[in-house]
């Protein structure tokens, strides 16, 4: 796994785990890889994966069943969207706004482009 420069690795792994669940590679409500297996797969310190799993447990995306391991929650998809939305609004949006002001792009133009984008993607589906 290639890690990006800016974000803490445990959060990047949280994104990776979320993606596996969103894409259905790790089915909802089922056991996910153990801390040690995922650490080996991603070549990172097991403590880092532990931190990811703690974080995702707090978000309600996964849950620890004592003695068995970690499972993704039945409502994992909702939970993932909730915390990713929160992250987007807190981290990505301010950066986006900063670029808008820096480059002098007004919101109306963004709106037009956004509508066009939504149209092409809905047509494509």
């Amino acid at each position: 796994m290639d890690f990006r420069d800016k974000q803490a690795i445990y959060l990047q792994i949280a994104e990776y785990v979320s993606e596996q669940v969103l894409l259905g590679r790790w089915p909802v409500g089922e056991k996910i890889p153990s801390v040690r297996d995922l650490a080996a797969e991603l070549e990172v310190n097991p403590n880092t994966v532990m931190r990811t799993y703690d974080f995702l447990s707090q978000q309600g995306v996964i849950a620890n069943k004592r003695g068995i391991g970690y499972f993704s929650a039945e409502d994992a998809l909702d939970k993932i969207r909730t915390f990713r939305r929160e992250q987007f609004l807190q981290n990505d949006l301010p950066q986006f706004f900063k670029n808008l002001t820096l480059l002098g792009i007004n919101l109306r133009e963004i709106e037009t482009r956004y509508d066009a984008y939504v149209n092409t993607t809905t047509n494509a589906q």
Partner: protein
Amino acid sequence: MIELTKVSFGYQRGRPLYEGLDLTLSEGSIYGLLGPNGAGKSTLLRLMSGLLYPKAGAIRVGNYVPGDRHPAFLEDTFLVPEEFYMPPVRIRQFVDSNAPFYPRFDRSQMKHYVQEFGLTDDQKLNELSYGQKKKVLIGFGLATNTAVLLMDEPTNGLDIPSKSQFRRLVAGAVDERRIVVISTHQIRDLEALIDPVVILAERSRSRMTVALKASVEEITAKLWFGMVSELDSSRPILYSERAVGGYAIVAENQSGEPSRLDLERLFNTVQAEPQRISQLFSSTSTYAAV
């Protein structure tokens, strides 16, 4: 648990390398031991494994004093040195004659490592390259399942794919009862693998000290790593260097802003400002004290 209490050591009379060095390492972690050339990283590993004796102070590993070289200590400790000798025998023979010293040695694990590193059991050690020999020794060390595994510059001499294999194998071989200590200069190789980080720096008159021992979580709670376009005074900067489009800085993290640890810059920060780092990490209280 590895405990060094007020340890002093030096190779020459009147020229101590360490004086009053304190360091405690606990199970279930892969420690990264970093320090400039000549800081005594290898010396520290040798002291922990009982190959050298402290001039003063005490070292304990679990219930043992390494220097006593008690068999029960030796069978639960393995050191992968940077320079080593391998006898001219086949890998299989090497395993057969050395595995009995380690009660928890796992042959199937060793077999898997040899395979993973692209070697075979019947290859002769004297016909292997330095990197290949090193892989055999690393695999053997992991397979001993000793409570203490010390590795001195393990990725030196490994080719690019082997470095990734190394990370995978070590990440998969650590458990709650094991302490792994890796000394390295190859920060980029091991950045995501080591946590906590132990950094040695010069304190005074060429005496080395542990300037920082902290987990990645603690480090990013206290320090902020990032890029800024200008060096302003809005953040208390500990270290900066020119980078494309501005400066890469390490600053005190006063607002609790998350960032990704950059080991190379952390290392430079600790070498440049050992006092401030010690202060920052010793005070669990607020930043107002600093």
